[in-house]
């Protein structure tokens, strides 16, 4: 499982974000910026994001880790670390 590359993680996380928010153009995402500020992500969106990442990468995500998924870059790093 540890062989998943960073680019693959990024691609997959982007897919998840755009599936939650179909009106988001992936090209315009600022990876550093909070999704809540960029796209009005609310608690339901965050839950959906966590659930989808958890399922996609088969990792457990405790509730207290949700803040680590708040931006694209952070979410990718979190996943990489979990997989690592």
């Amino acid at each position, binding site marked *: 499982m540890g062989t998943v590359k960073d680019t693959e993680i990024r691609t997959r996380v982007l897919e998840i974000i755009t599936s939650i928010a179909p*009106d988001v153009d992936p090209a315009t995402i600022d990876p550093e910026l909070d999704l809540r500020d960029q796209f*009005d992500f*609310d608690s339901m969106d965050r839950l959906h994001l966590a*659930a989808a990442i958890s399922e996609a990468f088969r990792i457990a995500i405790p*509730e207290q880790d949700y803040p680590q998924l708040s931006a694209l870059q952070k979410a990718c790093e979190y996943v990489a670390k979990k997989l690592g």
Partner: protein
Amino acid sequence: MQVDFHLPSLGADMESATLVQWLKKPGEAVHRGEAIAVVETAKGLIDIECFDEAVVGSLIVQPGTKVPVGAVLAQLLSETAGAPPPAKAAVPTPAAAAPARLSPAPLAAAPGGRARISPAARRRAHELGVSVEALERAGAGIVHLEDVEHLAAQAKPPAPDARDAMRIAIGNAMARSKREIPHYYLADTVDFSTARDWLASYNAKVPVGERILEGLLIVKAVALAAARCSGFNGYCRDGRFEPASAVNVGTAIAVRGGGLVAPALLGADRKDLPALMREFSDLVTRVRSGHMRSGEFTAATITVTALGEEGAELLWPIINPPQVAIVGSGRIALQPWVHEGAVVARPVLSLSLAADHRVTDGRAGSRFLRTIAELLATPAKL
């Protein structure tokens, strides 16, 4: 028996809608609660559903047509009343057909068939980047060159238009509410620590996809309180209160980029938290992808609105007519709280209530708010 199927009013402010698509063909059976068509309203695309067990007779309004609320969209043959066989009923008799000579082809698109878009219109649409779906929605039967150019001109700044429409719709509804409903307002603060702790331990035990949001506890608490306290669950029509038999909690959901809709969680007082959470999750997803069912729009008997964790501490909501109450949930924040004579830091929820003074008064409202608070203090019972 033949029954007219009308365009339902999906909101107090809705005057008309544009039929976008028929989901059923003549002769096809339609069940109670099943979506029969999609309409476009100022609030977006909405599936409208059928309230009978029936067979679709004739589709009267063609996609692309804007019709007022109450317009007959289709004729249904109600199976319960001994309707004639659908196939026969759906086909016009030859005698009724127009004379063959010089008779024009039927103008409308064949239901279920390929959209009738002229070749020139199709090519121009491609050039202008207008989608076939948009053409289908815009054309009255057959889409011509003129329609494409008209649509392209309209579509120049597409997003602001749709949002303006929603903003106007919200404005109309709220203005009507403020004009007609004598609101009274109450607020209370609730220690949310028990609820939060209980939920954290619940969520730790289940997969991410089955976790429950704090907001849902509030919705469930409001639903139970509304079932227990009379005067808050139902409608006020012509100055008279009509209590509702079921508790359908409208949940105000923000549409990304601006705007707000409040579809209902049906029978919220009778569903357990996991079931309610699944429905809530589904509802939010559908709102944000533009596919709501008409029943969800008109069914709410009371509404909950929450600003979320980034929101203000307290809000004074406006009732969604013809409902009589709306509960506002402010930000849950750590605050000084007096517990057993000592000041401690606790997560505190500010709850507010706007209610219709024609139906209840402040005492009843206070009792209603207190009931919600008590319910949140024993989350395991939710």
